[in-house]
């Protein structure tokens, strides 16, 4: 008997979603690690951060903030960024997502995109600010473009993850 089956027996919907969350986070971190060259890399969105934001705002069980912290730490290790930078950012994003949950549910798509852009921009600025404290890296245009690209990717991420969290119904036998 594994953990997932125990979860499924207690709450089948949550167990399915836990699996979807774990798989989508793993896939997003993996995709983030694939190098696309120095021209594209600074512009690409942080997929793992988008996935953390989605599950913290849309999931039936909001993503555990500690899980977001763990994923951020893994990102720090794999991308050679100072330990704790992405961990703190992901953790904060998950908390913001949980806090905005109700507001986002009632918001039309343009408003939601604007909110996502603001969250990603704030994250980018925070990351830049910490980087500035650690090594004095100046603000570059990529700090603004990457959140913009991330916002443009948001509808696709939302669509894919919404479908990932739903299990297809089996045809029920005739009565």
């Amino acid at each position, binding site marked *: 008997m594994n953990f997932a089956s125990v979860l499924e027996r207690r709450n089948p919907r949550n167990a399915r979603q836990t699996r979807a969350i774990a798989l989508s986070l793993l896939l997003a971190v993996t995709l983030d690690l694939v190098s696309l060259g*120095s021209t594209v890399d600074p512009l690409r969105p942080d997929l793992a951060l988008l996935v953390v934001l989605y599950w913290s705002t849309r999931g039936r069980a909001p993503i555990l*903030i500690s899980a977001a912290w763990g994923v951020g730490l893994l990102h720090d290790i794999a991308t*050679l960024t100072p330990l*704790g*930078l992405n961990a703190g950012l992901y953790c904060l994003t998950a908390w913001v997502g949980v806090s905005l949950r109700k507001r986002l549910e009632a918001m039309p798509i343009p408003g939601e995109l604007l909110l996502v852009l603001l969250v990603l921009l704030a994250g980018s600025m925070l*990351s830049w600010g910490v*980087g500035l404290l650690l*090594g*004095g890296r100046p603000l570059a245009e990529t700090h603004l473009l990457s959140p913009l690209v991330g916002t443009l990717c948001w509808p696709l991420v939302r669509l894919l993850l919404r479908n990932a969290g739903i299990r297809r119904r089996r045809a029920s036998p005739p009565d």
Partner: protein
Amino acid sequence: MQPVARRDPALFRRGTSPGTRCLVGLALSAALLAVDGSQQWAVVLRNSMEQAVAPLMIALELPVEAAREVGRGLTTQGELLRQIARLEQENEDLRTTARDLANLQRENDELRTLAALPVERLTLLRNVQLIQRGRGVASQRFLIDAGSRKGITAGMALVHPLGVVGQVTAAGETTADVALVTDAGQNTPVEVARTGLRAVMIGEGLPDRASLRFIASNADIEPGDQLVTSGLDGVYPAGMPVASVVSVRRDAQSEFARVVCKPAASIDGRRHFAVVLPTGGMP
């Protein structure tokens, strides 16, 4: 039927609140940021974790490399002919440069012998391969596939035939972190090849960009000047290309000129580099 205690409604089961979890996470992150790179145990911990994920990074690089190879294979014949012509020209230029360098080296050796100074030579330790490039604030850093087991230690220099690349900042058992000369705060002692003017090149954390500090506004330096290592730091061998001057801005209000340079050896499209032993610096 389940006992009553196991059917307690979710309303009464309250764990730690998200806000508290977030605060704990942020406190842990701040603590990690404070110790990362400054404490020996944190360096060891980081290197161990990097080694654990290194196989995944190598595996991820394989399909990308395969796609690049396929892309190269699809290059048209005309492109190949142009490349051959260009390479022949480059080869000729390199031969000329090599002849000039050999003459200069001979002259240099003679002068050093006269001055009774030790002759600095580039001592190659081993060739290494790039595993993973850093992102974000670490975009000017990368991970290589050799560590202390193969003799790599912090402070060693990485070079490429085009010039110096960077410096090993921390070495694990099987991997090591490298900071490029463009990494924020990286200092590289250089001299202008044309005039012998000495300066320190500072990385700015941006690709293909660094600057020279404390250059007097009336100093003899101009765009196009080649910068080579002075060898004063004992890390980089003397006389290796480092960068070329891109722009010099002289401001009447300031006694220093603003000199921007572009590194000679970019790591774009390159995966193999050589680690050389520290030279020990000039007496």
